[in-house]
């Protein structure tokens, strides 16, 4: 009964309105996965997945493609498992990371379409380490994306989300720290341009004791784009010794750009630490002056300052080629915005 489930909490983002537009349902090619043979990849017709909220139901209904990835216990590899989304659609992915496995994930989307739905559910069993890079560059006008992570005891998640899409809509990253001492760091770097109206909700729930959740979101907005950052840190009753920290920063490049940074801390336990910082700013005049005092022209100096701002969200990306691609996209977007 999907109707009875409520939608996730997305302040200032009109999720219901996006969902009412109806989701693309034409079947498409599955997600292309490059992985060592020890990893099992399948494309079943239907995904068996708990539906926690109304968005789960929406995503799971008639998905354009289904992909499951199973990483066995004890798996160790530094070469990433690469996931490349289909060219023309969304779909659903279920990833299971076995006990004590150490896995590097690289996920990339550049799909076109009308209203894309992308759902990713990742479960990591005790002792697992997941380094995850998500690169969203959707071309479709609307995309609703939800990624949900459940972490077991003693797990570590290092997750970077590079939001370089052209779509409007919502992108949710939800991490549940279910096991004792689970540890998650989520870095989000977003470049919003054109007439995009896009919201990011990064939520971490400390369910178990001594869990640590850090959210760090940096966004640059140009043209007439509107970017909303919601950071939600929730420490439930009983999760003693836990830590919830978040930082949401938005840089606006012109008068028509709009930005919201909303840090939300929900603390139901006393013996915890929590903190937040938020800002909506313009380009740093001191940095501009310094760069220009060495002869750099204003446009170039500005690009470098903006790159530096986003670096705070994207700093964990080690792949030099991908980083260069992101920097090139920043430069291109800003050159177009200046024109």
């Amino acid at each position, binding site marked *: 009964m999907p109707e009875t489930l409520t939608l996730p909490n997305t302040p200032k983002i009109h999720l219901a309105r996006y969902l009412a537009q109806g989701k693309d349902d034409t079947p498409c090619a599955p997600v292309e996965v490059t992985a060592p043979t020890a990893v099992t990849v399948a494309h079943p017709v239907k995904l068996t997945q708990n539906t926690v909220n109304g968005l789960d139901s929406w995503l799971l209904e008639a998905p354009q493609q289904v992909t499951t990835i199973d990483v066995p216990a004890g798996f160790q590899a530094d070469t990433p498992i690469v996931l490349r989304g289909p060219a023309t659609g969304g779909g659903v992915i279920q990833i299971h990371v076995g006990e004590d496995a150490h896995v590097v994930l690289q996920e990339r989307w550049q799909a076109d379409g009308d209203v894309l739905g992308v759902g990713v559910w990742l479960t990591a069993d005790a002792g697992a380490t997941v380094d995850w890079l998500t690169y969203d560059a959707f071309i479709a006008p609307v995309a609703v994306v939800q990624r949900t992570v459940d972490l077991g005891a003693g797990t570590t998640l290092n997750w970077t989300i590079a939001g370089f899409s052209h779509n409007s809509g919502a992108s949710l990253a939800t991490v549940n720290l279910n096991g004792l001492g689970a540890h998650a760091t989520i870095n989000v770097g977003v470049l919003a341009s054109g007439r995009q109206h896009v919201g990011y909700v990064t939520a971490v729930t400390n369910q178990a004791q001594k869990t640590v959740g850090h959210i760090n979101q940096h966004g640059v907005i140009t043209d007439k784009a509107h970017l909303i950052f919601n950071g939600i840190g929730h420490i439930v009753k009983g999760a003693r010794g836990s830590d919830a920290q978040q930082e949401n920063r938005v840089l606006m490049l012109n008068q028509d750009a709009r930005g919201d940074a909303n840090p939300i801390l929900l603390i139901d336990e006393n013996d915890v630490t929590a903190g937040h910082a938020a800002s909506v700013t313009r380009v*740093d*005049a*001191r*940095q501009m*002056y*310094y*760069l*220009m*005092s*060495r*002869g*750099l*022209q*204003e446009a*170039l*100096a500005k690009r*470098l*300052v903006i*790159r*530096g*701002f*986003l*670096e*705070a969200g994207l*700093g964990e990306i080690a792949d030099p080629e991908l980083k260069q691609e992101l*920097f090139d996209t920043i430069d291109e977007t800003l050159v177009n915005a200046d024109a």
Partner: protein
Amino acid sequence: MSILEIKDLHVKVKEEPEHPEILRGVNLTIKSGEIHALMGPNGNGKSTLAETIMGNPRYLVTQGDIVLDGQSILPLGVDERARAGLFLGMQYPAEISGVTNAEFIRAAINARRPEDDQVPIMQFLKDLDKTMAILKMPEDMADRYLNQGFSGGEKKRNEILQLMMVHPGLAMLDEIDSGLDIDALRIVAHGVNLMRGPEFSSLIITHYQRLLDYIVPDVVSVMKDGEIIETGGADLAKSLEKTGYEHLKVGDANA
């Protein structure tokens, strides 16, 4: 041969027009080939002078002119002044992440060159390695983000590295000696001395004689209350070290 002339320069902070002027009629001429030291107590306008020459938008020229080779540079923006040959080694350089030191220095060099004659990457890296070795900077500083997490001393050295790589006609160095230990001071001074030549001039701002033991100036000027109150040779700095600035009064300039 190039020449910078500061003529009756009056300056205010742009955002504080109701406050009195910081510079109250500064006159100064720096010819190429000359090392000019600017001394004086704290808070008397030395940094303001350097920042105003460079074109820091924080400052407003209310009277007078800054003339480079016969042309007023007041209408020029900070980047245009840099490309005209000016350089300011700053007291508090900004930190910029996401941009490596090497990438930035290369951009600064290329900004001064025509687009069809950019510096070849191999030649640039060779020069950079050589210059960093002179300044005894560890190799990894080229790949670190610009001034990000640099110590005070590393920042100063990095300013001198940029100076040596960019080869400006006139380098203003704003308290490049502050926060440096004696070994670092010697290294930085050696770097500046390597720049000396008929095509290079410098305005060195310092409180202390010590730096001038290593970079011997051709001219020493003392600034107090927004004016140059005394000008002399290298020995003026030495005598100030003994007497201090207290006895010097505005209006005593022996121009």
